[in-house]
């Protein structure tokens, strides 16, 4: 839920990084924390176990600039990826403005990715939010690992597209991040589908981290425009 504060001239938005355990959600936030200027970010808060597994969430506030005289403050959260923390995970989704799904590219984590994506849809639906109608991007992390699955396989499994029923939206929308690909297109069977924008990443090295953050933040602000 974006909060616009006319008194302090701030737009506050909440972005949640979701995905399977050990996929790199916390690593994304740590990289952002390490790279942005200290005056434009707050503390990185981690509620983690002794073994550095996220227990409740990580939290990082960042200012991404000023627009029309309003400071844009983004609150970045991660959720605990491990399956049995669903109650905590669901709490973090409350009033979310944008979602980043951090998938683990390793072929043997495909099952965990699918389970987490299904869990995301289910938890969002329980709040009455429709993931297909809100700012949502997917990051395929760990692209440097030898056992990383091909992007086409990951896309087919995790981002096959949802049907576009609104006739006004049934027109080709090119993917601004991948030349020759489309976010909205008509399949050979005649139905129109839309996919979430996706990014390849190696979060431990920072590759793709800011591209992902920029894309989701831009979608969140455009949802207000």
């Amino acid at each position, binding site marked *: 839920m974006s909060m616009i504060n006319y*008194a302090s001239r701030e737009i506050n938005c909440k972005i949640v990084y979701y995905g399977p355990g050990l996929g790199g959600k916390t690593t994304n936030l740590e990289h952002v924390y390490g790279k942005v200027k200290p005056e434009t970010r707050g*503390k990185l808060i981690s509620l983690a176990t002794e073994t550095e597994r996220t227990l409740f969430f990580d939290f990082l506030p960042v200012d991404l600039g000023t627009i029309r005289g309003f400071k844009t403050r983004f609150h970045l959260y991660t959720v605990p990826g491990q399956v049995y923390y669903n109650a905590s995970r669901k709490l973090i989704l409350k009033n979310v403005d944008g979602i980043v799904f951090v998938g683990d590219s390793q072929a043997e984590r495909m099952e965990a990715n699918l389970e987490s994506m299904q869990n995301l849809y289910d938890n969002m639906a329980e709040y009455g939010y429709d993931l297909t109608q809100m700012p949502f991007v997917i990051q395929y992390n760990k692209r440097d690992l030898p056992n990383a699955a091909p992007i086409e396989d990951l896309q087919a499994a995790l981002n096959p597209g949802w049907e576009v029923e609104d006739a006004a939206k049934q027109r080709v929308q090119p993917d601004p991040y991948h030349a020759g690909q489309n976010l909205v297109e008509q399949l050979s069977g005649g139905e129109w589908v839309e996919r979430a924008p996706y990014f390849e990443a190696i979060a431990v090295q920072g590759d793709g981290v800011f591209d992902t953050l920029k894309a989701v933040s831009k979608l969140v602000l455009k949802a207000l*425009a």
Partner: protein
Amino acid sequence: MTAGTANWSFTQDDFTAITESLRRFLGETKSLCALLVDRSGQLVTTVGEAPGLDTTSFASLTAADYSANDQLAKLVGETDFSSLFHQGEKESLYVADIARRLLLVIIFDSRTTVGLVRLRMKDEVEELTQLIDRVFSRDRNSDAPPKKLLQGADDEIDKLFNW
């Protein structure tokens, strides 16, 4: 099913009314500081002395703390716990729900008592509930300002991310 979560905004007048109410409460209860936080963890305003307090982190953790306790209440068969009290050696916290939208956090020390804070809190919650209800009923109006704030700002948004 709604597309996403609703947005809300508050104006300088709302801010002034809320601040005055909180300032009066702090004076009457001799508390140190009041923070108003929305349920998603964003700080709405802070009144009183909070030296060295990282209010952004504080707001986010308060919302998480309250949400977790909300779920604990459900597990024991309660609808919610309408307030929380955390006792420290020197400073303590009292947290109360405002209209299921916001949380009011009062930080106080030995200059007052939890009894007095709790006693006065009931009226304060009612007063703030009325103010906040006004903000939300106005935002439900289709002419509300937040929808227009970034209208036509697509180019500016693009430029903002040109880094």
